[in-house]
C-alpha cells in the first residue's frame, strides 16, 4: 500500500478535496456553454442581415443597383444580386446557403460609396482605428472607474460619495454632445488638441515618432470623451458591490486579524467585488461601441463608426450590413475574452468542474 499524506477524513469525497489534489482545471463546460451561445448569436446576426434587404421596399434596392450600373464587374454584380435576393428564380433556402458561402469566402459585397471597393477592404482600413480607440478607452475607464468605486464603497458615507451622482450624471449625457463640448473648449478655444481626424494630412503613416505622436494627440479628445461618459457605470456598480461585500463576515475576520486596511480593501474586498463587474464588462462594451459610432462622426475620426454613418447617408446598403456583421463579431470576441477572464479569476467556476 502506498504511503499517502494523511487526508482530513471530513474532506473525503467532497469536490473541494478532489480539486485540491488535481490543481487548476480549465472550466471546459462553462466556456463550452458560452461559446455555443455566441455561435448562436452570430448566426442570429447573420440571419437578420440576410432578411433585412429582402424586407426593404423594392424600389430602394433597384435604385441602388441602378446607381452602380456599369461600374461593377460581373462577379461583383452577381454577389450583390445574391445578397439582396434579386434573383427570384433561386429558392429562398438556396439564397441563404449562397449567402453563407459568400461570407465564408470573406466576400461581403461591394461598396458603392467608396468607389466600388470590396466591402471587406473598406472595413479593414477603418477597423483598427476604432478598435484602438475603444479598446484603450474602455480599459482605462474600467480601471479608473472600478478603483474609484472601490474607494468610495470603502469610505462609506464620506466626502467621496459626491462622485457617484456626478459620474452618473455624466453617464446620461450623450457621447456626441460631450465630444462637441470638449472640442469647443479644448480645441477651438484653447487649442490644446486637434479637432478631428486621426492624424494630420500630409504626415506619413508608419512607425515613426512623428506619426505616433500625431495619433496620440488626435486620439486624446475622443478617448477622454469615452472615459468621461462610461466611467459612471463602473463607479456605481463597483460601489454597490463593495457595500455588499463589506458586509460579509470574512472582511470582519480579516480586519480582526489585524490586517492593514489597505490590504483588506484591495486584496479582499475589491478583488471579490470586481468579479461581477467583469461580467458586465461585456455588456457595457455594446453601449460603448454604440456611443463611439456617433462620436467618430463628431471628431471625423476615420473609424468604423464614421464609415457606417457615411454609408447610411449614401444609402450604401452593402457596406452597412458588412459593418454591422463585423461589429457584432468584434463584440462577441470581446465577450468571449471577458468570459475567459472571469472563468480564470473566479475559483468557483473552476471548482464546479471537479
Amino acid at each position, binding site marked *: 500500500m502506498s504511503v499517502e499524506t494523511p487526508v482530513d477524513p471530513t474532506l473525503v469525497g467532497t469536490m473541494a478535496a478532489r480539486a485540491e489534489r488535481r490543481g487548476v482545471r480549465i472550466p471546459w463546460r462553462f466556456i463550452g456553454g458560452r461559446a455555443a451561445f455566441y455561435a448562436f448569436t452570430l448566426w442570429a446576426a447573420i440571419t437578420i442581415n440576410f432578411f433585412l434587404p429582402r424586407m426593404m421596399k423594392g424600389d430602394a434596392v433597384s435604385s441602388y443597383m441602378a446607381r452602380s450600373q456599369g461600374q461593377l464587374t460581373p462577379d461583383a454584380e452577381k454577389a450583390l444580386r445574391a445578397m439582396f435576393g434579386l434573383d427570384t428564380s433561386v429558392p429562398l433556402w438556396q439564397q441563404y446557403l449562397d449567402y453563407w458561402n459568400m461570407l465564408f469566402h470573406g466576400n461581403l459585397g461591394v461598396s458603392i460609396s467608396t468607389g466600388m471597393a470590396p466591402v471587406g477592404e473598406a472595413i479593414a482600413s477603418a477597423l483598427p482605428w476604432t478598435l484602438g480607440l475603444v479598446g484603450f478607452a474602455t480599459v482605462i475607464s474600467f480601471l479608473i472607474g472600478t478603483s474609484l468605486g472601490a474607494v468610495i464603497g470603502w469610505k462609506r458615507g464620506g466626502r467621496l460619495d459626491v462622485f457617484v451622482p456626478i459620474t452618473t450624471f455624466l453617464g446620461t449625457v*450623450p457621447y456626441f454632445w460631450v465630444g462637441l463640448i470638449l472640442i469647443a473648449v479644448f480645441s477651438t478655444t484653447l487649442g490644446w488638441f486637434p479637432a478631428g481626424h486621426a492624424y494630420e494630412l500630409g504626415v506619413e503613416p508608419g512607425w515613426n515618432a512623428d506619426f505616433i505622436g500625431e495619433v496620440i494627440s488626435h486620439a486624446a479628445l475622443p478617448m477622454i470623451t469615452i472615459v468621461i461618459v462610461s466611467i459612471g457605470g463602473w463607479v456605481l456598480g463597483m460601489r454597490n458591490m463593495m457595500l455588499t461585500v463589506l458586509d460579509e463576515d470574512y472582511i470582519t475576520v480579516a480586519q480582526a486579524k489585524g490586517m492593514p486596511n489597505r490590504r483588506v480593501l484591495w486584496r479582499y474586498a475589491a478583488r471579490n467585488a470586481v468579479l461581477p463587474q467583469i461580467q458586465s464588462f461585456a455588456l457595457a462594451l455594446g453601449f460603448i461601441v454604440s456611443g463611439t459610432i456617433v462620436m467618430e462622426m463628431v471628431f471625423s475620426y476615420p473609424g468604423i463608426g464614421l464609415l457606417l454613418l457615411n454609408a447610411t447617408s449614401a444609402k450604401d446598403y452593402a457596406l452597412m450590413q458588412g459593418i454591422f456583421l463585423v461589429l457584432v463579431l468584434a463584440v462577441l470576441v470581446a465577450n468571449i475574452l471577458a468570459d475567459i477572464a472571469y472563468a480564470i479569476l473566479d475559483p468557483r467556476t473552476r471548482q464546479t468542474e471537479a
Partner: protein
Amino acid sequence: MTTPAQESQTVTQDAQTLAQPAGVGAPETLAVAVADRQRPTKATFWSQLKASLAMFSNPKSATGLIIMAVFILVAIFAPWIAPYDPNAQNLNETLQPPSFEHLLGTTHIGQDVFSQLVFGTRGVLVVGFLATIMATVVAIIVGVTAGYLRGWKSESLSALSNVFLVIPGLPLMIIVASQFDDPPLWLIAAVLGLTGWAWGARVLRAQTMSLRNRDFIQAARANGEPLHRVILVEMLPNLLAIIASSFVGTMTAAVLGLTTLAFIGVIPVSNLNWGTILFWAQQNNAFPEYWWWYVPAGLCIALLGVALSLINFGIDEYVNPRLRSAGERARAMKRKGININNAVTQVRTDSSAAGSAEHTREVKTE
C-alpha cells in the same frame, strides 16, 4: 411561566393581560395584539396605493419625480409656454445670442431656440414613453414566461434575450431605421423598443425563477389556481419593484437612442426633438461660437437622464436596504468620532454618565 396554551388566547385578549415575562410568545404577537386594540382601517384602494408608492418616498426619487413632472408639464402645455412657433423663421434675426425676446437665442434662419426646446420635449417624451412601454411589455411577457417555464423553453427564451443584449443596439437601429423613408412615430418607437427590451427580460426572468420556488407559489399551485392567475395575481405584484426599475432604465436608453438617431439624421427631421435641434446645429456649423444653440439641448437630455437615474436610485435603495443604510450608519458613527473602518473596536466611555456619577459621589460625601 405561562403555558403555551395561553398564547392562542393572547391574540384575542386585552392589552392589560399581555404583561408576560420576556421570551414567552413572539414579541411581535405582543405588538400586534396591542396595536389591534384600535380597529385597523380597512385596506382601501388609497391606502394600498400609498403603500406601493413607498418606494418613491425617499428624497432621491422624489427629486427625480419632480424633475420628470416639470418636463411632462412643459410637454403638455407647450403651446402656452413657448413664445414662438418653433418652425417660424425670422430672417432678420438670425444667430442672435440670448435676449429678452429670444430666451435662448435664434438659429441660422431665425427660429427661436427656446420654443424649439419646449416643443422638442413633446417629441422626446412621447416617443420615449411609447418605446419604453412597448419594450417593457415585451420584457414582461418574455421574462416572466421564461422564468416560470422550465427546461428548453426557458433556456431558448433566455438565449433570445441574451442575443439582443449582446448585439450592439445603435448599429442595429441605424440599419433598421434607414430602411424606411419617413417612418411614423410608432415605428420609430418600435425600433427603439427592439433594442431595449432584453435587459428587463433578463432581470425579470431571474426574479421570476426565484419566486417560482417560493412556498406561497407552490401553495397557490397546490390549491389549483389556473396558470394565468398564478402569474398575474400571485407573482406580478411581487415583481413590481423590478418592473419599475426596468421601466426607468429602459426609458433612459430610449431617450438617448432617440436623440442620437435624430442627431445622425437617420430619423426624419420632421419629428422635432432635442436631437433634431442638435442635428441642425451640427449641419450649420454652430460649433463652437453659437453655444446657445447646442448647449441647452444637450443639457436637457442630461437632465432628463439624471431625473430617471434618481428615480432608479430611489427604487434600488427601497429594494436593497443595505445601500440605504450603509452611508447613514457610517455618518452616524463618524459623528460620534468612530471610524467605521477601524479594525480595533473602540470602547466609548460615556462622559455624561461619568460626570453625573461624579456629581452624585460628591453629593454623597458631603
